[in-house]
């Protein structure tokens, strides 16, 4: 028989020691923390800054949340092993972002991704895939960040969400010329849509 996937366990309260040690003052082991930015200077496309928080079911801002992000470049090509072509060399597409220990705010500066086709060929809305871990999260949560002012029509993934009012939980709100806000709610009123995919 086939082997089973190794079961997940919570990342725990000290996940930063392993994934962003410099951020928690452990210097000298790695030159720098991985995933500081998903883009380098010269990346093509519209550079945007997205800020947000992660809240739990009690309404508390989670100051220990760690989020990884993965996205295509402005032309909709993924920067690694995309069978359709080679991405913008100034887009790595992956970032590791941590909530501020005091405020719980996180910030992602990146380029807006292009549209990527779903397996059936229909174009998905421009999105950034998020994977959220923290103490109390037993298996990493998958969601997607979209842009409220983008062309999101015809996205087969968003169409899959039965209660269409919940689609709004996946839309980053425009707050300035190149600024967006994306608040994630793990549980309760306004709960963010999470995916099993």
């Amino acid at each position, binding site marked *: 028989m086939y082997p*089973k*996937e*190794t*079961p997940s*366990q*919570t*990342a*725990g*309260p*000290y996940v930063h*020691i*392993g*994934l962003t*040690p410099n951020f*928690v003052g*452990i210097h000298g082991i*790695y030159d720098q*923390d*991985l*995933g500081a930015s998903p883009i380098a200077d010269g990346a093509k496309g519209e550079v945007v800054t997205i800020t947000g928080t992660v809240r739990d*079911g*009690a309404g508390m801002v989670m100051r220990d949340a760690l989020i*990884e992000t*993965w996205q*295509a470049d402005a032309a909709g090509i*993924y*920067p*690694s*092993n*995309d*069978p359709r072509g*080679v991405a913008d*060399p100034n*887009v*790595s597409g*992956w970032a590791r972002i941590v909530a501020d220990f005091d405020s719980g705010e996180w910030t992602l500066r990146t380029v807006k991704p292009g549209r*990527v086709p*779903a*397996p*059936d060929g229909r174009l*998905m809305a421009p999105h950034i*895939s998020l*994977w959220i871990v923290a*103490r*109390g999260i*037993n*298996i*990493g*949560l*998958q969601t*997607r960040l979209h842009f409220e002012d983008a062309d999101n029509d015809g996205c087969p993934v968003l169409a*899959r*969400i039965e209660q269409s009012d919940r689609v709004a939980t996946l839309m980053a709100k425009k707050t300035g010329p190149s600024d967006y806000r994306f608040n994630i709610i*793990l549980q*309760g009123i306004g*709960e963010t*849509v999470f*995916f*099993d*995919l």
Partner: protein
Amino acid sequence: MSQIKPAMGHPAGGRNDARNPLIARDRDWHPAPLAPGYKTSVTRAPQRPLVAMPTTLSEQTGPAFGHGLIGELDNNLILNFTGQPAIGERIIVHGRVTDENGRGVSGTLVEAWQANAGGRYRHKKDGYLAPLDPNFGGCGRTITAEDGSYEFLTIRPGAYPWPNRVNDWRPMHIHLSLFGSGFGQRLITQLYFEGDPLIARCPIVHTIGQDKAIQSLIAPLDMNRAIPMDCLAYRFDVVLRGRRQTVFENRMEGM
């Protein structure tokens, strides 16, 4: 600027072909998101059902990291903080990363973090009375070899108490983070040690319902890899989500 190298890693057409969908996760095998015995999970688990669908390129592609990233001592937690040895039982932790098809996952990043031999983390939020070890940082990383194998040299972490029920203690454990070739394979887990009586009492371990799944997180002592007069060894194999091996399904006519 911190930058991973784009367009390196997993060639199209190989077993990591990003056109192949990932095998669906068995959510009954994984821990329950809401497990009352682990109190923090009660407010951090989604209440609404997950929106389930087959994977797309967004999950089937993922970041790649080159061997060039890894420093010489990165997988040596005994020496990588100050160059002077950390205190504790010296152990090798090693194993193989495979996918659900049983194939080795080569070239993937494995990151580890753990408490020191007294059960204390180098973290401002850890106030446990066991002292810090000035020579122990607590993290390491490596990239799997061609056959998916990896190894760390470290000290066996101590058990530690944590605020949950009045007298809960974590069994000795090492946290591990793995990537695979697709973002949908991303996994964080914990390695436990054969024979630790705290495993059976741990609410975090028991967020997992099936005993066979729990057993898969317990690393057996491996005397074949232990080095006489130097260190013991524990073996921990990791399985990441696999890919369905066909490129013919779910494709629009003519694509």
